[in-house]
């Protein structure tokens, strides 16, 4: 929507296709904030410190040119949001309120904890998403709401010239032509059984790209958020720990002091999540089954909780039956974010790599947000960086498309057979007669991913998972669509989503097995340390031959010195 | 289509304010009349009371207030229920007839009221 806004503002005819009404997208669930060095909490704050934290957080496979761009342009992008009306919380000086988040430091890790995450209470994502939608209303962007994009249309030159989309209300299927197609379809957390993600996070953009034969990058990197409410999967923000909450095991011990003596509960998310799993595995978990730990908040007092974390109080009471004012909240690491995605440059242009390993732009295709892998998050995303990522690179895509449209874009129209090719999956589904039930298959897929590709991974066990997936593929491709009706047929959409989930899951599995090291969110028992010699690189998954290749990480920021890989301690 | 053409003041604020002001007048008037009734007046007392100009003016004001209050209130009721949305194009006809009848009744009462109060 940020890209659409940019283009509408400049007077270009822009349409947004969304499978849900735009304010129902998953960004709405982001709680804590948007991390950016706007120098409100600390007047001396520097975007370079933010850049350092992000590079370190990424375990050094974040592209430094992209991180540099994000962190340096970030303040401008955030101020624009404020000018659009985003209701940020405020400091006494009237500036935007910033709170501490995990992995944040001052002075390149030397100056202690920083507070850099700009917040609108604990509803920043909601406020941001509504503000962006409102901005688009103001500039009269055209919305195709509750239209579901099924596949990309490639012309004979391999350029992307539009999409096939279904109007959910009427079942009508159309070919939407465009000079620039921006995928902003978000993540695919629903490949896991336990996830903080919305039902709609089914990796539709990744599915489309893989089916079109384009590669995805670092797709094995899945962030498990330390604090999902046990049982429900619902997220409680890192801001809880930023505001002073901490994790305890069954003995009441603040165990993060052992794992990360300096940053403690505000270490990187991968570090905290692993520590929690260790506590649980070593028998110090809480509850009758010892399968979770507690997030302690009551010491912050009712006033702080109700003013800074009102949404958390509400969620905890509803889903954990625990009132944070009085008792700790049961939490467990839960699948949260897909660091990998469609490789892009800083303009949002989707990339492939040629035989010599050089980047080649896919004409007409752009990606931004969670579906993209610019890559600013590398192997582990820092809290609050996802909102910044989507705003900065949505904006950058819009700016770049604007420029290229002004210069003139000439692409050949898709031929009938190109369109037919893109339609084939839908046609097959509509013609299905037998086959298995979609929700059963989805459950099986999610359980396989949860068990074989979770917080800790293991070679042979992953291979077993890959075998299970291989067997699932044909069953999923032949899944049954019993209800063939046209009007608001969500069964059809769910079947199509399942295809996408599977594509993401398979890419994740194969790439995870191939990356023979532990880095960031990817932790292997059989290769338990970082291997900079062989794996200080992006993984690239090529769908046509299910091959995993490598792509160089960018270590050449334009205005600052390169941050060299170091051991990552918090 | 339901429009504001037949509303009292063509303005929501005006109508809303009128509704409140007339309500206050009506309340005051009925309290006044109520107090008189409780004191158990005979014909002579009634007659004396209404021979005073201010009582006639007050009564007239209450009567006009009743008219305005009823118009605003019934306008809202009619534009809620007798509409094209609820009953097709017949809704418009029924609503206008209802408003016309209401108008005639209000007007009749007002004229009659003047007649009674000033004994024309």
């Amino acid at each position, binding site marked *: 929507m940020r890209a659409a806004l940019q283009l509408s503002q400049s007077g270009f005819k822009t349409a947004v296709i969304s499978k*849900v*009404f735009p*304010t*129902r*997208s*998953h960004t*709405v*669930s982001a709680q804590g904030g948007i991390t950016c060095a*706007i120098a409100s909490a600390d007047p001396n704050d520097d975007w370079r410190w933010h850049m350092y934290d992000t590079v370190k957080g990424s375990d050094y496979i974040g592209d430094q040119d992209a991180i540099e761009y994000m962190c340096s342009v970030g303040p401008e992008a*955030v*101020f624009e949001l*404020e*000018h*659009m*009306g985003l*209701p*940020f*919380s*405020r400091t*006494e*000086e*009237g*500036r*935007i309120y910033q709170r501490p988040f995990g992995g944040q430091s001052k002075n390149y890790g030397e100056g202690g904890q920083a507070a850099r995450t700009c917040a*609108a209470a604990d*509803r920043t994502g*909601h406020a941001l998403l509504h503000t962006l939608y*409102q*901005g688009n*209303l103001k500039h009269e962007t055209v919305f195709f709401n509750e239209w579901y994009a099924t596949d990309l249309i490639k012309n004979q030159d391999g350029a992307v010239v539009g999409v096939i989309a279904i109007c959910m*209300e009427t079942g009508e299927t159309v070919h939407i032509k465009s000079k620039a197609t921006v995928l902003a379809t978000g993540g695919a957390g629903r490949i896991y059984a336990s996830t903080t993600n*919305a*039902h709609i996070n089914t990796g539709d953009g990744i599915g489309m790209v893989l089916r079109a034969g384009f590669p995805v990058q670092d797709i094995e990197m899945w962030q498990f958020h330390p604090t999902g409410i046990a049982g429900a999967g*619902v*997220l409680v923000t890192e801001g809880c720990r930023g505001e002073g909450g901490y994790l305890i095991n069954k003995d009441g011990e603040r165990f993060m002091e052992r794992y990360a003596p300096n940053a403690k509960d505000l270490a990187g998310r991968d570090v905290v999540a692993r520590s929690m799993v260790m506590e649980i595995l070593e028998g110090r978990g809480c509850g009758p089954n010892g399968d979770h730990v507690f997030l302690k908040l009551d010491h912050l007092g009712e006033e702080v909780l109700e003013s800074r974390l009102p*949404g958390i109080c*509400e969620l905890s009471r*509803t889903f954990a039956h625990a009132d944070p004012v009085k008792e700790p909240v049961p939490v467990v690491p839960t699948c949260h974010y897909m660091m990998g995605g469609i490789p892009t440059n800083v303009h949002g242009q989707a990339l492939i790599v040629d035989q010599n390993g050089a980047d080649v732009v896919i004409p007409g295709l752009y990606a931004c947000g969670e579906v993209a892998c610019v890559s600013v998050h590398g192997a582990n995303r820092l809290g609050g960086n996802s909102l910044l990522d989507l705003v900065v690179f949505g904006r950058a895509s819009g700016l770049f498309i604007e420029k290229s449209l002004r210069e003139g874009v000439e692409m050949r129209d898709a031929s009938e057979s190109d369109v037919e090719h893109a339609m084939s999956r839908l046609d097959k589904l509509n013609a299905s007669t037998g086959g298995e039930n979609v*929700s059963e298959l989805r459950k099986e897929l999610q359980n396989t991913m949860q068990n074989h590709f979770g917080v800790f991974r293991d070679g042979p066990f992953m291979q077993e998972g890959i075998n299970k997936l291989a067997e699932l593929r044909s069953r999923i491709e032949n899944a049954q669509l*019993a*209800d063939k009706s*046209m*009007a*608001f*047929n*969500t*069964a059809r959409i*769910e079947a199509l989503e399942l295809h996408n989930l599977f594509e993401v899951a398979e890419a994740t599995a194969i790439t995870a097995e191939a990356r023979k090291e532990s880095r960031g969110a990817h932790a292997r028992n059989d290769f338990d340390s970082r291997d900079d010699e062989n794996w200080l690189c992006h993984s690239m998954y090529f769908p046509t031959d299910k091959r995993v290749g490598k792509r160089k990480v960018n270590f050449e920021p334009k205005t600052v010195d390169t941050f060299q890989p170091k051991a990552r301690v918090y | 289509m*339901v429009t*504001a053409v037949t509303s009292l003041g*063509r*303005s*929501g*604020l005006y*109508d*809303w304010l009128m509704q409140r002001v007339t309500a206050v007048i009506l309340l005051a008037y009925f309290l006044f009349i109520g107090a008189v009734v409780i004191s158990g007046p005979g014909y002579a007392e009634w007659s004396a009371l209404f021979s005073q100009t201010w009582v006639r003016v007050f009564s007239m004001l209450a009567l006009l207030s009743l008219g305005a209050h009823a118009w605003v209130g019934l306008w809202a009721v009619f*534009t*809620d*229920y007798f509409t094209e*949305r609820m009953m097709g194009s017949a809704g418009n006809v029924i609503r206008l007839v209802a408003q016309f009848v209401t108008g005639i009744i209000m007007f009749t009462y007002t004229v009659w009221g003047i007649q009674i109060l000033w004994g024309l």
Partner: protein
Amino acid sequence: MLQVSIYRYNPETDAEPYMQDVQVDTGGKDLMVLDVMEMIKAQDTTVVYRRSCREGVCGSDGVNMNGVNGLACVTALSKVVKNNKLVLRPLPGLPVIRDLVVDMSLFYAQYEKVQPYLQNDTPAPAIERLQSPEEREKLDGLYECILCACCSTSCPSFWWNPDRFIGPAGLLQSYRFLADSRDTATEARLAKLDDPFSVFRCHGIQNCVNVCPKGLNPTRAIGHIRNMLLTRAT
């Protein structure tokens, strides 16, 4: 076994909507209503409803449960079920597309009518526009709206005039911008609200307040708008 009665209508096959009875085994757990709906859909894929975040922030799954509007994902069975029976209907007052899915165009049109975006005709500063915590506090209870339509579809005035009365959700957003110290279009906004329908169809019934899943109070916001109109006129 929980007895669920669910509103069914498929425009392609049904001449009339009907209620279908389904039994659901909740295993004695106090599930959310959405969980029950998911269980029903797993058995019968033709049952249609909207859902997304399943944590009460996206506003997709507003439905009418045992006569009361709310979000299925944050409504526990224990809160609505009486005598082991749950009746699920679409939000009232809007055209039904299919089953529990209603056509929300009228609702969104009213939202758009209030120009729900910040308008400020002064040049933007290089940093953010300053706003004191006190000024910002005025937006609390307003900006949190998730556009689920539970309020507007529980409002009789909106049922009767959804094309003319902005409704509680739209008016709450209208006031969200009227109350924002950074917005400079107050006069133009108020001028558009003065007709007898937009604001003044609110009769203070307060159904909106009772059903809002986010605990917001549109009636109070409407009162503030009325006061602003009054101040402006006098």
